[in-house]
């Protein structure tokens, strides 16, 4: 009940806030259309995993970007609740801290997922990747796990921050590196060791890789034919561990 209540509020706020939907989709679309097309023509004839063109290779990375940004910012809204005092109303209610965090995580994940679906429909309609319905259905749980983990990380940061000024730091020193290291723009196999190591430590790498596997076929995955299992396993662990960490940090917040 409490989990559902918190989730419901996230939905109401999301539907009400049209600018947020546009705001988070604008940048990824520009990336896809301008950078995607630009590099697509520059990289003509270069061999990419899965044998696709560059824009199709990059598209799953941009879906990952939408999930990453949308989710972390959903988690960060805890700071705004603190600032507006609404957090006190939640904290004084007879509901467990873990159900608050779980409600928040599920709510944030749902909204991020909706945004990713909008982007995926563009990708489909404009023929960037002509994926099947089955592929879409398999992508859903994967995308859900990615968002769940990153909402939790947003909550984790938010528990430590007192005002939205800290958002910029999170943006520059967490979100951007996570995005750039995820292999959204380049294949991992030819990277220098240091960069490859960093990329393999980035949870979003497994999200983007899983999406490529599902949308472009197993040959597009860095981990090969069994890649999808590795991706799902890592992301499940990521979501579970961050949920515990987020709940712990939230619990200690006053």
């Amino acid at each position, binding site marked *: 009940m409490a989990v559902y209540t918190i989730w419901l509020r996230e939905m109401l*706020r999301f539907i009400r806030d049209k600018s947020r939907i546009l705001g988070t989709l604008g940048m990824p679309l520009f990336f896809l259309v301008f950078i995607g097309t630009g590099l697509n023509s520059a990289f003509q004839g270069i061999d990419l995993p899965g044998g696709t063109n560059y824009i199709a290779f990059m598209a799953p990375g941009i879906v990952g970007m939408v999930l990453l940004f949308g989710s972390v910012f959903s988690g960060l809204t805890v700071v705004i609740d603190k600032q*507006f005092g609404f957090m006190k109303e939640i904290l004084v209610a007879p509901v467990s801290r873990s159900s608050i965090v779980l409600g928040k995580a599920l709510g944030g994940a749902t909204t991020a997922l909706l945004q990713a679906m909008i982007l995926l429909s563009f990708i489909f309609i404009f023929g960037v990747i002509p994926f099947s319905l089955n592929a879409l259905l398999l992508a859903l749980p994967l995308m859900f796990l990615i968002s769940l983990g990153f909402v939790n990380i947003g909550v984790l940061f938010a528990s430590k921050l007192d005002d939205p000024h800290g958002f910029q730091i999170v943006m520059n020193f967490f979100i951007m590196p996570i995005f750039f290291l995820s292999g959204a723009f380049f294949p991992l196999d030819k990277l220098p060791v240091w960069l490859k190591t960093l990329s393999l430590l980035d949870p979003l790498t497994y999200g983007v890789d899983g999406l490529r596997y599902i949308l472009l076929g197993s040959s597009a995955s860095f981990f090969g034919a069994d890649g999808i299992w590795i991706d799902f396993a890592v992301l499940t662990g990521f979501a579970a561990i961050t949920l515990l960490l987020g709940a712990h940090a939230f619990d200690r917040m006053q």
Partner: protein
Amino acid sequence: MNIIETKALTKRFGDLIAVNALDLKVKKGEVFGLLGPNGAGKTTIISMLSTILTPSSGSALVSGKDVKNERNSVRKNIGIVFQDPSLDEELTGYENMDFHGRLYGMEKEQRVERIIELLELVDLIDKKDVPVKNYSGGMKRRLEIARGLLHKPKVLFLDEPTLGLDPQTRRYLWEYIQNMNKKDDVTIMLTTHYMEEADELCDRIAIIDHGKIVALDSPKNLKKKNKAETLEDVFIELTGRGIREENADSKESWKQKARSWRRG
């Protein structure tokens, strides 16, 4: 029976002792007032009793449950109207109420009925589907009061609930709250800076200064003991005439301490 009982309840913020070894007993069914100058520690006391803040030391029982170790049981029994804003401004008045009712596990039928009753009480029924960000200050305050009353708690904390409301609304709301106190046996702990309000409503009053109780009695006895006409005179007599700055610097708080020593 004491529904609130504190033993040496203390809260420190760094060097500042906001609440200093407070011993307080509130009887079931009482309307209990906390009065005191700005920064006296009233809100901090209420925050500890309502599990928003963890005490630095000492203990407190609310409705028989420990505020440190049985937070969730305490939370089930209390309602609170915060001094500072605590609404979701993006949601409508009705949605704010509904969220609250759901969090407190109210069944749908009872929830809807109570929400309508209370929104009528605070005269917001016509605005129930308007986002709270479009409410006036007084309307927001009224909504917060309505929300605090929604789930009929055993103990109700009201931290300057009527701040900024017009006299008609204040009178009207207090009548409803008094009625709740009598009919449903809700214990009420309130703070206010309106002395007449406290005089009229409270069974007993604690005057707090620098986190300590300086006087505790019924309004009548307080006036008698201090040979004062009004509660305001008692208040000024006991807490001095100086203006309190919150976060007073150390020099200022020394001056205040010196003053209270002189008064003995």
